[in-house]
Structure formats: C-alpha cells, structure tokens
C-alpha cells in the first residue's frame, strides 16, 4: 500500500561532507538493499529519493549529500522532528550471488552498508573525490578505498559478481569491464512509484522509468 509513514528523527551526524540521518524504524519495512524511499523534504514541494544506508533493529539510516534545496533541508532535521517516508520502492539488488564485490563511488556508497550487512560483509572497493569524502568509507566493512585521481575501475579484480552504485560515468565504466554486474542508477524523481515519468533513463534503447524498472539494473 502506498502510504507514507511518519517517523521520528532519532538524530543525525556528519560523515565527511555527508550527513547520516537516522530515524526510528517503527513499522517501516527496510526492504531489499538498493530499493529506495521517498523522504519528505521540509519546506519543499516534492520528496527526495534515498536508498537505505543502515538498518538496525531500532533505526533506519540515510546517507545524504547536501547538494540542493531538498537534501539540505533533510540534513537540518533534528532529533524529535517528524519525517514522512514512502517505501520501500523499486527493485533492489539480487542477493543470490556467489562472489560478491561491492563497488561504490562518492555518495553512491549510500546503499552499500546495508547491502554489505545482508551479504555477510563481502569485499568492497570504494572511490572518493577527496580524503574528506572518503571518511564515509568507515560505514562499509572490508573496504579498499581509493581517492582521485585513482578510480575504482583501475583496481577492479576479475571473477566477481559486482554490485555497484555511484556516478553514471563510474557505472558505465564498470559495465564496460564486467559481464554480470548489478548497477544502481539514479535520476530525479517526483513520485518514486511510476506516476510522474520524470525519472526516465535509456534502458535497452528505450526511455523507461527508473523507479519502475530499477533503480538496480543488470549491466547487460
């Protein structure tokens, strides 16, 4: 059922340039890693799509890069305030993989801590713009970290089932280097449930809604 839940903000912490926003979990289903939630952005008309970063018994965490009006508003939420959340939405990662390797770039590491937990802590390869941004790597166990000008694709070992999230150029590069990767993409979304057609991306040569077909897509 598509009903938003009002959850209490438990707190938020800076993680490098990002903010980890924690909410009390309540009855909310955390879903499958790679699925996403629409978070009501205080004072804004439209909610913002965010993948789940952490799920404990008591809390859900969202890693947010404050780059625009909505994300900045979300990062100002304080403990005790209420946040309305819709989800989980979309299609997450397939977890039935034999040799998982998590690959993340920048704020694209957001879904990887929860994914890592569900997969039992597989190896991860993370790339960041700077050492400050790379502070977020502490959220992902077993991670090898590179900072620009080194890119994750330079270190990608063969023979793994890659599960990746990051900027589009990184995902394109991963796609060109692997045969069976799962890639989590992003696009601006107004609704997250197939109504607005705003999140269209080219899939199999056609413009399709990322919220319905993805956000995790097979690399092929």
């Amino acid at each position, binding site marked *: *059922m*598509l*009903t*938003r839940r009002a959850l209490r903000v438990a707190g938020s912490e800076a993680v490098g340039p990002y903010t980890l926003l924690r909410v009390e979990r309540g009855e909310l289903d955390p879903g499958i890693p790679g699925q996403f939630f*629409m978070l*009501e952005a205080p004072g*804004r*008309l*439209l*909610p913002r799509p965010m993948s789940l970063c952490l799920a404990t018994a008591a809390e859900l965490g969202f890693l947010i890069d404050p780059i*625009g*009006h*909505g994300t900045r508003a979300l990062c100002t939420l304080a403990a005790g305030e209420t946040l309305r959340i*819709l989800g989980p939405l979309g299609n997450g990662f397939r977890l039935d993989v034999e040799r998982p390797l998590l690959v993340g770039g920048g704020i694209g590491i957001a879904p990887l801590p929860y994914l890592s937990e569900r997969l039992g802590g597989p190896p991860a390869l993370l790339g960041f713009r700077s050492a400050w941004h790379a502070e977020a790597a502490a959220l992902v166990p077993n991670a090898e970290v590179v900072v620009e000008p080194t890119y994750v694709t330079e270190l990608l070992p063969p023979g793994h089932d890659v599960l990746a999230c990051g900027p589009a150029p990184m995902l394109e590069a991963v796609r060109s280097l692997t045969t069976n990767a799962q890639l989590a993409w992003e*696009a*601006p*979304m*107004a*609704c997250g*449930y*197939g*109504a*607005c*057609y*705003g*999140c*269209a*991306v080219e899939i199999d040569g*056609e*413009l399709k809604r990322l919220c*319905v077909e993805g956000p995790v897509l097979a690399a092929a």
Partner: protein
Amino acid sequence: MRLLNASGCLDALTAPAVAAELDAFVTKTVTPLPRGGNEPVRIAETEVGMLNAIGLANPGIDGFLHQMLPRLAGLTVWVSVGGFSVREYAELCERLEGEEIAAIELNLSCPNVDEVPSGVGEVVAAARALTTKPLYAKLAPAADVAENAKAAEAAGADGLSLVNTVKGMALDERTLRPVLARGAGGLSGPALRPLALAAVFAAYEATRLPIVGMGGVASGRDALELLAAGASDIALGTILFSDPAAPTRIRAELEAELAAHGFADPDNAVGAAHEPEASTLDPKSRVGRKKSLHTRANVVG
C-alpha cells in the same frame, strides 16, 4: 462531485491502490503513434511549483488499446488524447468509440510539444462528429480561456477540464542553465492554484458546461475553492507525487470544509463564488463591509 487524477499524474498499472481511491482514472495522453518522450532531465522543483517536460510519453493508440486498456478493467476510465492535427484528434476518438471507457479528454494545451493544434472549436467539432462518448476539452489557463470554453461548447463538448499546466523554466543553481533538457516545461502545483480559480470562474460564467477543476489542489480547502469558482468535479495532479494517499485525505478534508461552510454536499458549493455573500443581503452589514475595505485600502496606499 467526482474526484479524478489529472492526466499524466498517475499510472493505474503501477499504483492500482491509488487509482481505486478515485471516482475515475484519467490516462496519460495517448497519441496516434508511440512516443518515448523527451530526453532527461524532465522534471524540476521550484519555490512555487513543479516543472515537467515529459513530452507525452505513451505507447500510442494501438499499444494503449491492446496492452493497457484491458488491464484497466474494473476502473472508470477517461482517456486523454492528443494529436498533432485536427484529423488525428478525430481519429483517436473514432478508435475509442467501441471501447469500455467513460469519457474522452481532448488535451488541447500540452506545453511540452512543438506542434500546435488548431483552434479549440475546430478540434472539438471534428472529434464530436466521430464519438458519442462524453467529450471534455482540457484548456490552459490562458487569457482567452472563456473564448476557448465557448468555442468548445459551441462545437459540442460535454465538459471542460481546467486547467493544464503553463510554460515555465528553472535555471540550475550553479550553472545558470535550464534544468530541464528541453529548456521550458509545464508548471504545476501551488503556483497554478490562483490561475485555475480564475479560469474556472471565467468558464463558469461563459458557458453552461460542467467543469473538472484542477491546478494545485493539495487540500480540501483548495478543492472547496475550485467548487465555489464553478467546478463540479475535482482532479488531483502534483499532490499525488508527494502524497499517494491524497485522494482519501482530501475527500475527508473537503467534507469537513463543506460542513464548516454549511454546505450539505459538494454540489451545493458549486458556483458559490458567483453569488452575492449572504451577509451582504443585509444593507447594514454591506455598508459596514464597504467601509472596512475602504479603510484598509487607505492604509495600504
């Protein structure tokens, strides 16, 4: 009063539970041929509303009739149609004639395609000749909305859908370039509310056609105001994106608003804005009201 979605603001196939809360589901505009729509970026948020330039993405009339419509069984379906010539609108209506649909809405005002259709009257007349379905003309909140409404009525329309979006633009915070790949897009949400009120008000005075009012409705109060301006049905658009439970919430809020204003049901509120205020029928209170307005004007001036 019926509660609908605005065309292009809901997909009953991905959100059947939301569609089930409405009295009728209005499809995304169907065109003669399939359209992928515009390149991304297609949407942007502004301080006062949302911009979209989707570009009438749809499976085309064949795809719609064979793949979509059968899956909408059980819903009361209004089909929005859009053509790039008078003939195309008419042919789309003809293709729908034998189908189990409740109404056809002619999208005469999409801001996101280059091809401009002919006059409202001409399109409605051509469509009317080929369909017996209830025919609604969807118009933009332009200065000539009353003229277009009259033209639609004269040509045989059964109703009006007011209003479509208006063209707007947003620039990127850093680059100062348009956010939307297409440059401009259709502005919806709160910014449309006063434009919708004015358009519905004007069309109510200009014609006798029933009006589906839409444009920025986000609460029961917004719905009540459109009813008062002259709408007899209400459609929800942008609010569905942020709140899929809006149909149920707004119905409940409207019920409370109607009761607070002494209306027994929504139909009693239709056109209320065109009637003299009950209190002004009392000469004494009219004098008092004028005086207070005059005083306020002086203060402002």
